[in-house]
């Protein structure tokens, strides 16, 4: 008996020693290949390019799906370059106010190899992409069966809405029609009027009214060529995956492993057009960049002009929690990573990398991201909004004056943000330059004066004689983010206003929205494309939450602002447009539907072995420009991860020492 136990204990500890003393989360073979390790935090809902609409998904779909247009890797402000298209088209105004764009597709654009292409002919594993595939995807965007979140943005295309409605009606009326494959349904309806294919490599898009921002949408995966074979083959039946889980595109990488709840592996696409045509703008490392890029080593002769991509493989791992992710980055198991705010001090000291990190050859990158976080008031509220008239406006102004966003940014973002002055982030071309919002500079005295004017001296509501009571609805607030909201409450306390932080679930908040029973909320918006319109529309009447369910949760609807918005929307960037934007900003300055808090500054870290890192800000992965030195990485990792073993023996020893007297007394007592 005893011998068995001893043996079992020995075997057990041997196992632990053999397997245990190694914290490498990867198989041991990755020194030969250039594998980029990266992480994702939640399983992707969908990788269908018509549906995928968040940063995390784009990091995968951006590699798999190439777009007609792309952004320049280095240049700022953001500049469009041709991708699959031969050149960036310009708008051709037609009579009756319509606008037309012509795209020409590069020859030799091929899909990544995939068994689905057998549908188009036995033995086929790939095929060339044509404009038919782009048109097919545009029709998919109109398909009500897909959860397309940006459908409205394409409704400027002539016939797009009609096609959408026609699909709903025919499917509802004709079950036989509804049973057909989507592609045949589209064909039966004659497609979208404004999308015309003149030639397999030429596409004409006609808009019924000017919408200059449309080009940006052609830099997003929503307009990528999609192979009908893939959509039809991956239907989720008979053990096949669903297309949403199995992207097939023309990008530099193709899906190798998609285990959506733990691991995604992308391999090079052997048929990528850039391999055949390395001179294409999107297929080689750029020769020129923004000021400062050369100093940052981003125009290294070793890379300039070389064909892309440099990596062999990209691997994403599920990492739900920030701390493990960051610690694994520090252990060298992720090649780059954002800095979670809590670890910021560990890494960055007075805006520069800490010596410890610098010694590890970790590099720090910053980029202002085109996004805004703001507090919003419900403009339909009796106390705070338009119904309260001038009192309400003064109250909003006072509250705006009390919130110190700089300190907020320092506390919760470790300074990684710019205090926002307008809804438009400064990196967007067309944003008012050098503007300082007078209501966003903390001035408690003025705020108190405004409160007196509003009829709430020292925050006392004359109606009740008690401090004015407002509710700040924070939905989906984790314990982590609660202090971030509490901060604002504390700021308003200084004015004597009693704001109650009410944390609710999303559904409870929605109910409050439905009833119009919310007063203050906190919200963020990240740009789809770098144009002021993409921010100002958030305050347009057409987007009001109360009437249209749109994203204008402030329910702001100001006639002056609205007419300016309608003008601005269709204009090209230029001094005239900037003047209009200034005017709109001035209205917002006075009306204060929002208290603009901050524009994020992304700090990201990269290990020494990772080359060509330049943060982009918007959610366009620039992975194809990255390069890795795997040998160095393997060596460094080993030296960083030596396990500490002595505590095992210490604990075991303490246990044994603790037991011995027990054995002795025990047997003595039994005597």
């Amino acid at each position, binding site marked *: 008996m005893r011998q068995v136990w001893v043996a079992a204990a020995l075997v057990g500890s041997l196992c632990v020693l053999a397997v245990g003393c190694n914290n490498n989360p990867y198989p041991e073979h990755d020194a030969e290949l250039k594998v980029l390790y990266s992480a994702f935090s939640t399983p992707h809902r969908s990788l269908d390019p018509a549906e995928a609409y968040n940063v995390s998904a784009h990091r995968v779909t951006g590699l798999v799906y190439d777009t007609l247009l792309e952004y320049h890797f280095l240049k700022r402000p953001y500049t469009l370059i041709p991708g699959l298209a031969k050149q960036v088209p310009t708008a051709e105004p037609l009579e009756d106010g319509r606008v037309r764009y012509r795209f020409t597709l590069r020859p030799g654009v091929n899909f990544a190899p995939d068994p689905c292409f057998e549908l188009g002919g036995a033995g086929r594993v790939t095929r060339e992409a044509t404009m038919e595939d782009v048109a097919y995807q545009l029709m998919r965007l109109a398909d009500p069966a897909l959860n397309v979140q940006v459908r409205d943005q394409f409704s400027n295309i002539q016939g797009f809405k009609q096609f959408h409605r026609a699909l709903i009606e025919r499917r509802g009326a004709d079950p036989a029609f509804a049973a057909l494959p989507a592609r045949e349904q589209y064909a039966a309806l004659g497609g979208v009027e404004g999308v015309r294919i003149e030639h397999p490599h030429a596409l004409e898009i006609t808009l019924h009214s000017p919408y200059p921002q449309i080009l940006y949408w052609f830099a997003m995966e929503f307009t990528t060529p999609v192979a009908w074979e893939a959509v039809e083959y991956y239907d989720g039946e008979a053990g096949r995956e669903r297309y949403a889980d199995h992207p097939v595109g023309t990008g530099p990488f193709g899906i190798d492993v998609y285990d959506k709840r733990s691991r995604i592996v992308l391999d090079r696409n052997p048929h990528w057009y850039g391999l055949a045509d390395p001179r294409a703008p999107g297929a080689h490392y750029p020769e020129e960049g923004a000021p400062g890029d050369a100093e940052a080593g981003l125009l290294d002769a070793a890379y300039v002009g070389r064909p892309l991509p440099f990596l062999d493989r990209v691997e994403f791992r599920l990492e739900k929690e*920030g*701390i493990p992710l*960051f*610690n694994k980055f520090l252990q060298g198991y992720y090649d780059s990573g954002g800095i*979670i*705010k*809590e*670890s*910021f*001090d*560990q*890494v960055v000291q007075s805006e520069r990398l*800490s010596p410890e990190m610098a010694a590890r050859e970790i590099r720090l990158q910053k980029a202002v991201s085109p996004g805004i976080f703001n507090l919003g008031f419900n403009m339909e509220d009796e106390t705070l909004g338009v119904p309260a008239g001038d009192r309400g406006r003064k109250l909003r102004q006072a509250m705006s004056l009390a919130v110190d966003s700089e*300190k907020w940014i320092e*506390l*919760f973002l470790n300074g990684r943000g710019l205090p926002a002055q307008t809804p438009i982030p400064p990196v967007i071309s067309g944003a008012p330059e050098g503007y300082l919002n007078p209501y966003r500079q903390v001035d408690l005295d003025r705020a108190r004066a405004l409160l007196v004017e509003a009829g709430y001296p*020292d*925050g006392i509501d004359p109606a009740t004689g*008690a*401090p004015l009571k407002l509710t700040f609805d924070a939905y*989906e*607030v*984790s*314990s*982590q983010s*609660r*202090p971030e909201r*509490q*901060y604002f409450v*504390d700021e308003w*306390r*200084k*004015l*004597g*206003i*009693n704001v109650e932080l009410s*944390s*609710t*679930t999303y*559904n*409870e908040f929605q109910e409050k929205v439905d009833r119009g029973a919310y007063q203050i909320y906190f919200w963020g918006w990240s740009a789809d494309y770098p144009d002021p319109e993409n921010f100002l529309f958030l305050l347009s009447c057409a987007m009001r939450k109360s009437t249209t369910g749109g994203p204008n949760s402030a329910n702001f609807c100001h006639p002056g602002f609205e007419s300016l918005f309608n003008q601005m929307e269709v204009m090209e960037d230029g001094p005239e447009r900037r003047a209009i934007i200034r005017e709109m900003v001035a209205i917002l300055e006075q009306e204060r539907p929002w208290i603009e808090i901050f524009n994020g500054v992304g700090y990201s870290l990269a290990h020494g072995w990772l080359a060509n890192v330049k943060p982009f800000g918007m959610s366009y992965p620039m992975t194809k420009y990255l390069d890795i030195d795997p040998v160095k990485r393997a060596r460094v990792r080993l030296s960083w991860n030596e396990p500490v073993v002595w505590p095992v023996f210490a604990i075991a020893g303490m246990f044994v020492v603790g037991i011995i007297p027990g054995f002795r007394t025990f047997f003595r007592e039994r005597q």
Partner: protein
Amino acid sequence: MAPHVLSNAIVLLLLVAAGFALRFVRGNRMWRDALAQLWRRRRGSLLVIVAFLLVGLLDSVAWTGGQGQDALAAHEARTVIDRLFQGDREASYSAPLADAAFYGGDPLAAPGGHWLGTDILGRDVLHRTLKGARVALMIGGLTSLIAIPLALLFGISAGYFGRRIDDAIFFLISTLASIPSLLLLIALIMALGKGTWQVCLALGITSWVGLCRVTRGETLKLRELDYVQAARALGVSHGRILVRHILPNLMHLVIITFVLMFSQLVLSEAILAYLGIGVDGSWGEMIDQARNELSREPIIWWNIAAAGSAMFTLLLAVNYVGDSLRDILDPRTLRETP
């Protein structure tokens, strides 16, 4: 009525009730003996619990007026704990007993006054931790206020009257017990909404089942005991038998189950806090808030340490007392329920 008046009234009520309970215990030799034995065995734990109870009560007695840290404070009802420990608000973190801010080293408004340091918003951690005690006790108290009467009502009726009533209640218990409690809890909170009452209600609904089972089983046994039979032979009515013979003999089970349940409730709340549906101001929330602070550099340890050890101390004391109570009050019945 303003909430703090209600709260004060409840405190008064609780104190009166505690007074009566103490008088009863002193007058009843059995309970007195049990208490004395408990005191002899677990003096430390009892003192810890009493201290936490005291803090909870002190944090429930509030009044308006007085000088606070800002303009609004004068209008708010603040509790004794608020008045004692809130101290001066700092800009952000400061270490325990420090006299300069943790980052930047600016002088503090209350140098050396924050025994357990301050959190990211500059709030006194000791103050928050003490306030957490009230939340923890509320969770336990409110939940048992819901669960115990429910469990007694159903358990006793099932056990005493048997047959159809028993079948129905047994089915109900089995159904509720079949749903994994954490999931039921989450589902209930998603349905009921967030908030202290809702969480306690959900906890009550998920936790009464266990007590109900115990009560039912014990009532089945008690029903057959000689003294209950004697009462029946004496023509005592069912109601009177339930009140005088069954209920008092279940009380020790209720107390033991409650004490053992308490720690489960507080631990469950911590998990709920992680899922974002906990109770505001609880230790669970503090721990969850503070867990990422561990990777700050230098490490911010006092938040998680304060909340963690407060919770740990209370639960340790409660578990220890619960264990002893089980030995003292009832050497058999509850042994096999974990």
